[in-house]
């Protein structure tokens, strides 16, 4: 099935969008972080959520996987209203989701193999030997074969991320979420993670949601992108549409133009430093 990027109908049946957000609002301690987000993600599509620090993109991701509760609006996942269903139903859906956290979030007291095996042991009745084989397969998929018995603390940053992806893949999820997959990694390892995401997309036709602010990586992996700014969707479209967009915020983000306030601040700093250097000259003159 080809990813249908065009059809953005409000079809909420199962064959419809894997994820639908309807006027999603989220508040933290009385302050609204997301002000009414609307978009759909189709099956097999890779959506990249772009946004600066504090834009609300991480909150959006946390809400999508059910770690934050919306104050109003709905998150529909696979045709189910995620925030209005019972705990048991929510857990059923969660078993079909995989999440790779920014720092990996591997359990430090367990080996890599045990980390990957955990969801299988918890949610399936597979024999230990089968679980072992599954773990090996998953680690193989992310290029970490032979690292079953290592502790997360013995792995490098990139390997931790890969192990986290293996754990997220353990239950063969339909939707895979990535929080800042390339944050804190060197360019080569970051490119490796991008490659991994592309492979997963091609091989398993997974629906993938990636939160990032790495532009190069975003344009490489995305089918569509959504730019979040101060809790609002500024732009939503294919990578081509984003590249050619005339929207000032999109241009600012993609062309890496600093905030006007910051630019003014720079002017202000310059203004401050200039007279001081002059007065320094003056003093020098006097002393001479």
């Amino acid at each position, binding site marked *: 099935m080809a990813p249908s990027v065009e059809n953005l109908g409000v079809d909420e049946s199962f064959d419809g969008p894997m994820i639908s957000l309807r006027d999603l609002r989220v508040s933290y301690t009385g302050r609204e972080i997301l002000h009414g987000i609307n978009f759909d993600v189709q099956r097999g599509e890779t959506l990249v959520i772009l946004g600066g620090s504090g834009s609300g993109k991480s909150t959006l991701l946390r809400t999508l996987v059910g*770690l934050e509760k919306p104050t109003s609006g709905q998150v529909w996942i696979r045709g189910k209203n995620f925030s209005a269903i019972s705990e048991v139903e929510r857990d059923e859906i969660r078993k079909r989701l995989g999440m790779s*956290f920014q720092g990996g*979030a591997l359990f430090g007291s367990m080996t890599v193999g045990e980390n990957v095996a955990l969801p299988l042991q918890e*949610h399936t009745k597979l024999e230990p030997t089968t679980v072992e084989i599954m773990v090996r397969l998953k680690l193989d998929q992310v290029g970490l074969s032979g690292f079953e018995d290592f502790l997360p603390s013995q792995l490098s940053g990139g390997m931790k991320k890969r192990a986290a992806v293996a754990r997220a893949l353990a239950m063969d999820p339909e939707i895979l979420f990535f929080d800042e997959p390339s944050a804190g990694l060197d360019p080569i390892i970051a490119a490796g993670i991008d490659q991994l995401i592309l492979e997963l997309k091609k091989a398993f036709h997974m629906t993938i949601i990636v939160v990032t602010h790495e532009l190069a990586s975003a344009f490489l992996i995305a089918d569509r992108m959504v730019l979040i700014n101060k809790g609002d969707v500024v732009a939503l479209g294919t990578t081509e549409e984003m590249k050619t967009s005339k929207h000032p915020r999109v241009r600012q983000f993609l062309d890496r133009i600093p905030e006007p306030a910051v630019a003014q601040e720079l002017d202000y700093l310059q203004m401050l430093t200039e007279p001081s250097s002059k007065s320094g000259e003056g003093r020098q003159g006097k002393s001479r």
Partner: protein
Amino acid sequence: MEFFGKIGSSVEGGLAYVGALTSLAGRAAYFTFIGPFQGKPLRFQRAVSQAMEAGVRALPILSLITFFIGLILALQAAYELRRFGAISFVASAVALSMTRELGPLITAVIVIGRSGSAFAAELGTMRVSEEIDALETMAINPVSFLVAPKFIAMILMLPCLTIWANFMGILGGSLFGVAQADFTFPRYIIASLDALFMRDVVTGLIKSFMFGVTITAVGCLEGLNTTGGAEQVGRSTTRAVVMSIFLVILVDLVFTMLFYFLGEH
């Protein structure tokens, strides 16, 4: 007026904290006693490893400290009893104060230092490194997976440790009894056992059970409520220790009063 307002808000805060503790203990109890009958796993293996860590590994230090406490109790009691020529009551004084009060309390304090703090640090670290979030996204309940095994371990191990502490305390007292008070070792032990009623031992064990619940609830709650970064884990740990000691003393007071007034009749 402002003064009363401050009292009011701190009482409110205190009650909310106790409420949060009770809620956490309640959820842990659900996953321990009811969950397994509804097809949810009882994590026996994890409970056993927690029990090893919180219970068995505490034995050496607990033995040493309670032995000393028993000896100190004997010395202090003898100081006063000697004046009345009643030094032979040392055995019963040590036995009673160990089993009714100091055995459970000293055990609780040691367990707070070893395990209550460790619970807060472990869960706090897991919270700030998103491991708790990871559990939730994997549809694994953190209370069932992390907190319930700790509760099982603690409510089983604390009474056991307390019995051991009582025994070691009496042993410590016997050192003084044999060396200074004309007891032979068997006579000292018999005098101690004669002084004790079942009631004394049981009230101590009921207390230690409640201490176990309190320590686990505070340690886990402080850990789970950690926000921010690594330095907050340290704060949570400190808070867990201080709050646990305070609440253990409070629970001790409540139960001692309860047993005192119940014992009247």
